[in-house]
Each structure stands twice: as structure tokens, then as C-alpha cells.
């Protein structure tokens, strides 16, 4: 498709009196923290203008006004449901600047939490996709079962959502006692539940009717629009930032990147289910293969006084070395990409040699997917808009930053 055709679908048409404008949001049952200005001709959508920024918190500016480490809990709040994956990119960028690598056990633990978060994030997305067609059972089930994974994450990190787990050089907590058994139980439970999801939701003829063939995104369109995450892979493009081997231990594990060819809303939903299965597969392997060893890089570990370090390590946690309060970033810049539940997150950290990063650029997956609100709905019926929205797993606070 030529870019002019693509543009014609992306851009606003003004001054057409035949068009009926409906403002969905920002106070609307299904708008989330955003506004969609929908232009209708009869029942058919001719244009959607996603008006975002209602929960903009100037994350990039705040991050450059704080010491490097302090930005981790801050950036976490872009996507609070997926907080490990959203910060791992930033932590990797810092590690590249500081020239420190996490020890193997820490990399395994990061992968573990990443996948737990990914499952929770996908369940969140699937639940919202349910409520967007008023399927309240799917919504409640997903949110109820998400609790299992949140509980797992809590037992690992000490917080339900805001884990702040990865720090430059490693992670903050070691595996607790009996974690493996709990995780395996959770996995077996989830596998059964996924079958139930199929029976009541994915295979439900009513749901199929609403999602199948709606909002079709072709592979070349997905590439050109820079769509990320499950929305990209549901269009048949096999790309996942985990394949880059930049973080975690994904290059040491065997797993598949699920891809679907249809590119419609239903395949985007089903793909999330496939990814949950793959994530559980990864968790199983991580728990089997995890090596013994330190969870923080030697460079920082030896800065902690032994009197303090040993009892803490026995408890499965680390103490921060005092230097963490004033971590000096060497001059330079670093790029990092990581795969979140919603898609690829991009970080570019520039440092001028002071304690605070000079510039933190973050492009979140939802921000890159906003363009689909322009691109997909035209030509669909008004009632398809929630179905498309639901299938995109769009998270407004993440896009607004």
C-alpha cells in the first residue's frame, strides 16, 4: 500500500456536515483515561481521533530531575499492571551506562518476574476485552485469576504491583522458600482455567461474532505503522523484543513466539492466551534451571558491609550499598528495548556524567499502538469500536506517561 493511501486513512477530515460526532470519554464507561472523538456517518465510523494525554504526568521530565535509581519506581507507574517489564528496559540502559552486568541468578529471577507480570498483564487485557462486549464473566474471571499471579509476585518481591524489583546490577529479593511448588500449582490451575475461558468466552458464538473479522490489520500495515506486541504478532509478524537477547535469559530457554495470521480482533485475543501458555512454559524452565549464586553484581555486593550483607542474604534479600543513593552515571548514552505484555518498550538514556540522567526517552507500547485507533475503526460499525478497543489491550496511563 502506498503511503498516501495510508495517510488518507490516518488523517482527519474536517467540515463535513453529514458527519455525526460522538465524544467517547473522558468520562465514559468504556473510554478509560482518554477521549475518542468518533465521527459517524449513520452507523459507520468514518474517523476516530484519539485524544490522549488526560493522565500525562511528564514522566520523562521527572525522570531527568531525579537520581538515576529513583526513576525506577517512577517509571513503573506508567504501566502499574506490568511493572517489572516496564522498568527492565530502563534498568538495562542504566547497566549499559554503568558497565555492570547482573549475575546469572539475577537474570533468571528477572525473567521469572517478567513472565509472571506478562501473564497478569495479558489477563488484564483479556478481561477488559470481555467487558468491552459486556461479557462480565470474562472480566471477573480474568481479574480473579490474575490475583493468583499477583500473589506469586507479592511473595517474591513484597509488593502486589509496584515491585521495583530490578536494580542496576541485579535484583532485590531472592526466591522465597517453597516458591517453586506454589508456582507450579498456579501454572496447573491456569492451564485448566484457560480451557474454561475457551468454553465460555473464546469459543462462545456471541463472542466470535463480535470479534472475528473485525479490525483486520494486514502484516505490511502492521510493519509500516510500527505496531508492537501481541497486536503485531496477531498480524503474522514474528517479532518480539525477547528475541533480541538483550535482557533476561531468553536465549537460554526454549519457547515459541506465538504468531497468528488473521490479524483480526479475535486473533489478537487468542494470541494473548497462547502467550500465557508460553509464559508458563518459560516459568517452568526458569524454576528448573535457575542456578545458585549471588543476585547482585559483585561490584556492588562488596560495597555492602559484611555485617549487614550476610544476615540479609540469609533472609533472601540484599541491602543496597550506600552508593545507590548517589549513583554517578558515566557520560554517554544507551538504548534498551524490552518486551512488555503490551509490546515493545523503548528507552534511550543520555547522561552528561552527573548523578541525574540528562534525558530519558521512553516510547511505550501503548503510545505506539495509539495510531491503530486512527487506522482500524474507519469503515466499521459504531458497535465495533469497543471490540477494536478491547482487542488492542490499550492502557492509557502507559501511552500518556
Amino acid at each position, binding site marked *: 500500500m502506498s503511503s498516501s493511501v495510508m495517510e488518507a486513512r490516518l488523517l482527519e477530515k474536517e467540515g463535513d456536515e453529514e458527519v455525526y460526532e460522538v465524544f467517547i470519554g473522558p468520562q465514559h464507561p468504556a473510554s478509560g483515561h482518554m477521549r475518542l472523538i468518533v465521527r459517524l456517518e449513520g452507523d459507520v465510523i468514518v474517523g476516530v481521533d484519539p485524544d490522549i*494525554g488526560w493522565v500525562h504526568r511528564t514522566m*520523562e*521530565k521527572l525522570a531527568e530531575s531525579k537520581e538515576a535509581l529513583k526513576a525506577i519506581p517512577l517509571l513503573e507507574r506508567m504501566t502499574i499492571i506490568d511493572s517489572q517489564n516496564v522498568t527492565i528496559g530502563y534498568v538495562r540502559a542504566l547497566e549499559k551506562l554503568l558497565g555492570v552486568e547482573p549475575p546469572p541468578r539475577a537474570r533468571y529471577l528477572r525473567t521469572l518476574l517478567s513472565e509472571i507480570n506478562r501473564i497478569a498483564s495479558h489477563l488484564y487485557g483479556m478481561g477488559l476485552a470481555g467487558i468491552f462486549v459486556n461479557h462480565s464473566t470474562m472480566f471477573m474471571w480474568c481479574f480473579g485469576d490474575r490475583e493468583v499471579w499477583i500473589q506469586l509476585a507479592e511473595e517474591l518481591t513484597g509488593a502486589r504491583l509496584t515491585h521495583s524489583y530490578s536494580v542496576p546490577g541485579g535484583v532485590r529479593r531472592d526466591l522465597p522458600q517453597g516458591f517453586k511448588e506454589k508456582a507450579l500449582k498456579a501454572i496447573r490451575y491456569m492451564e485448566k482455567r484457560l480451557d474454561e475461558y475457551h468454553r465460555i468466552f473464546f469459543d462462545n458464538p456471541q463472542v466470535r461474532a463480535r470479534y472475528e473479522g473485525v479490525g483486520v490489520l494486514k502484516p505490511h500495515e502492521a510493519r509500516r*505503522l*510500527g505496531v508492537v506486541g501481541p497486536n503485531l504478532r496477531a498480524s503474522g509478524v514474528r517479532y518480539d523484543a525477547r528475541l533480541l537477547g538483550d535482557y533476561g535469559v531468553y536465549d537460554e530457554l526454549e519457547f515459541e513466539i506465538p504468531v497468528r495470521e488473521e490479524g483480526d480482533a479475535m486473533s489478537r485475543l487468542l494470541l494473548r492466551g497462547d502467550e500465557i501458555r508460553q509464559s508458563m512454559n518459560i516459568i517452568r524452565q526458569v524454576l528448573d534451571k535457575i542456578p545458585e549464586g549471588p543476585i547482585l553484581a559483585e561490584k556492588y555486593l562488596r560495597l555492602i558491609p559484611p555485617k549487614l550483607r550476610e544476615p540479609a542474604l540469609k533472609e533472601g534479600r540484599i541491602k543496597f550499598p550506600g552508593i545507590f543513593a548517589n549513583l554517578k552515571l558515566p557520560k554517554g548514552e544507551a*538504548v534498551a528495548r524490552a518486551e512488555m505484555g503490551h509490546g515493545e518498550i523503548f528507552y534511550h538514556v543520555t547522561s552528561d556524567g552527573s548523578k541525574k540522567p540528562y534525558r530519558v526517552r521512553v516510547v511505550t507500547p501503548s503510545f505506539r499502538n495509539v*495510531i491503530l485507533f486512527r487506522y482500524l475503526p474507519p469503515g466499521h460499525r459504531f458497535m465495533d469500536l469497543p471490540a477494536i478497543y478491547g482487542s488492542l489491550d490499550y492502557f492509557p496511563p502507559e501511552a500518556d506517561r
Partner: protein
Amino acid sequence: MNTGSRLERLEKGLRDIGLEPVKAPGVLRVDAQPESLVPAARLAVEHGYDHLASVEGIDWPSEGVIEVIYHAESYDEDLRGTLLEIRVKVPRDEPRLPSLIEVWPNALFLERETWDLMGVVFEGHPELRRLLMPPDWDGPPPLRKDFKVKTEGVFVNVE
């Protein structure tokens, strides 16, 4: 023409239009001029970098410039490990660049955001409207260095 990997061909092509690509870990860095930006971008698209991952502005008040950085990305297996980074410097008091929306359609929101938060004008962009900031915002672009964030000290004095 068909020798070497696509990345090497792209490097060669960039050299042919007078740019100096530099290899860094995971990044192919190019310093461009505002005039050479569009040709470089077109070349990138031809060689598989078919969308942008980021458009970024960095304010350097000491040099009096704003540096605009484009990170182009590809989903193809041979190119996905390397980002193409095109850096352009524009004067801080008159930051103007041609819009790349015709080359990379997904620059639509990325450029609009950079205009919104950094005040860089992308000529030819069809809708430079407020995106993240409130529509009636008229202060300085918040990501410029002269927009200060209030910080607090560590100590509090009590009586």
C-alpha cells in the same frame, strides 16, 4: 549492489549521500543535517527500516541547539538487532525540521508529541495540535531545560 547484508548496503548508501554512519552496540548512528534528513530516511525505508521506534528531542542550552533523534526499527530478522539512529541538530530558538510522515507514517504521533513537549516544528506535519499537554497550554515546552522541576532538599528544620 546486491553484495553484503542489507545493513552494509544501507551504510554504503548513507555514505553515498555524504553521511558518516558510526557503529555502536545495537545502534547504527548517523549525524545528519536538516537537508539530508529526508533522503537518509528514504534510504532507511528502502533498506528495511520501515517504521520509527522513537522521535526524541534533547535540549542542549549550552550549545544553543536542540538535537532531534530518530530511532528507526525493523521487524526483519537480519535488521531487528540494530536500530538506525539519525541525529539532527536544529537551532534552539528556531527549531524547524521537515516532517517525515510521508516516509514513516507512524511519525504522526511521535512528531506531534515532540512538537508538544519539546517545541520542535515539523514542517508539513498535518496536525501539530496539543497531544499530551492541555489544549490551552502556553508555557514553555516542558521537556526543555529552562522548564524547571521544583526539587526539595533532604533536611527539614523543626523548632
